[in-house]
């Protein structure tokens, strides 16, 4: 048998396994979130309403079962801090980042929904970048409910965002406005400034092979994102407000919010190997 003839069924087998992996990851995350006790905040933590913009109540339509848009229960042993450097656990998906949305242009949404429907007819999941073991890239990487590490590197005047999902390395530059003639890339070009305690990151030149969110909504190369990160709860949490502007697919700017919880120092950055783990997710045939 030639290598090519052998390669095709292997590839189909492999892709199939990636979906099993994605489903098991989702089931695992759902169980983790579902196990989290609702109820009053832990002792020593101020009670009260969530910060402005963090909707209470049920998650918006389109969120996978088990996820909530906003959760205010921060574990009692969460360390605080004054620096954004550290490991951060995303609290579910971003609030206000539904699968479908009236901010999307109707024709773009129709094409997207048709592609999802077609995938369902063909009996497989909708192929997002992570299902193909490609980087999520900007801005969908922000939507992934995983772990984020932030490294402030003052010597090279940059802040580096590391995402465990596919080991993505995204530098943002503190003293470098967008150069002209940028070539689009998965992470785009990010210019960051500190404005009154808020880290504001402006990103352009994002390759249109990436998607707007975890659900795979498309964007155009005209996409422009503005992230505003701010430490809250004495540095125990990091709040993000993300604005998406894209005249190619959106009729108005789309604003979503997300919260991250600080993890203790020395928390391990888990090794994530897409091609490998997808195969491991499938038990050996009996």
């Amino acid at each position, binding site marked *: 048998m030639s290598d090519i003839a052998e390669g095709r069924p*292997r590839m189909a*087998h492999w892709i199939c396994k990636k979906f099993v992996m994605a489903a098991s990851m989702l089931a695992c995350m759902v169980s983790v979130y579902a196990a989290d006790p609702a109820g009053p905040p832990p002792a020593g933590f101020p009670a009260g309403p969530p910060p402005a913009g963090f909707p209470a109540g049920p998650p918006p339509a389109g969120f996978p079962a088990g996820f909530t848009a906003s959760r205010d229960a921060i574990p009692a042993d969460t360390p605080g801090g004054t*620096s954004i*450097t550290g490991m951060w656990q995303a609290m579910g998906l971003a609030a206000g980042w539904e699968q479908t949305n009236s901010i999307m242009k109707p024709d773009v949404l129709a094409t997207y929904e048709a592609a999802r429907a077609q995938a369902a007819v063909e009996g497989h999941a909708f192929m997002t970048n992570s299902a193909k*073991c*490609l*980087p999520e890239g900007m801005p969908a990487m922000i939507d992934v409910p995983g772990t984020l590490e932030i*490294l*402030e*590197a003052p*010597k*090279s005047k940059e802040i*580096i965002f*590391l995402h465990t999902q*596919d*080991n*993505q*390395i995204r*530098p943002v530059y503190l003293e470098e406005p967008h150069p002209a003639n940028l070539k689009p*890339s*998965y*992470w785009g070009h990010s210019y960051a400034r500190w404005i009154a305690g808020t880290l504001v990151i402006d990103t352009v030149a994002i390759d249109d092979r990436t998607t707007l969110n975890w659900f795979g909504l498309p964007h155009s190369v005209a996409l422009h994102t503005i992230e505003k990160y701010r430490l809250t709860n004495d540095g125990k949490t990091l709040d993000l407000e993300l604005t998406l502007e894209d005249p190619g697919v959106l009729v108005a700017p789309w604003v979503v919010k997300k919260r991250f919880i600080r993890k203790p*120092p*020395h928390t*391990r*950055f888990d*090794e994530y*190997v897409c*091609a*490998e783990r997808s*195969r*491991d997710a*499938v*038990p*050996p045939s009996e």
Partner: protein
Amino acid sequence: MTQPLIRIGTWVFACIATVNISAPVRSAEAAQIGDQGLDGVWWIISYAAELKPIDGGAPPLNADARSEYQQWKRTLQADSTVDQVKTHCLPQGVPRLMGAPYPFQIVQTADRTTLLHESHHVIRSIYMDDVHPSEGDLTPSFMGDSIGHWEQHVLVIDTIGFQLRTSDRVGFDLRTSLDDSGLPHSEKLHTIERLRRIGDGNLLEDLITIDDPGVFNKGWTVRMVYKRQPGMRILDYVCGEPHRDISKVKRIS
């Protein structure tokens, strides 16, 4: 008025530093003393598919491992198998990753030293002044678990917990190895790296001691040297897409 004070301060600091030269120094201080720490982008000077011990000769493989290695090399050369770590851009492990012909960036922060490798976009975290998880809590991984501490100006990195793969669960050949030629290792692999700036500070040396009683008759050491790359940035590295031109890295056969 400020100027003389700064001079006196510097002098006092220099004296203290000299007096304490043999005392153990804490991570944050060590990073500041003498050199400028290890932050920056570094690129290996020469690339070799086969690792060679620093004191000459061949790696001290035991008899079983030697025959396994020769067999693997033969199948690779005959194209009857593929090196999946390379074709699927899997994390190469230590020392293989440290010998990769692509640059990497070092970022030092409070509790860790992070190596951002362009090659296979591997993120390698070294937890400073920490201990390894206990055996039950240690999940074997391609890159293992790395802890670090400073001995004067030398960053010492201790790594255990490497997973050994000789095939994957669905029967593909997947072999983790110590270099690009397929030099084998076992689950007992333990590496100790001594990373320091040398020369005028523009070179970085990594002396990697490989201790693996499952494969080698004794411990042995390889040396890798990287050059500082001011202004260079780590690029996107997406498996299956074009990468940086590495033709300038000298190849040693």
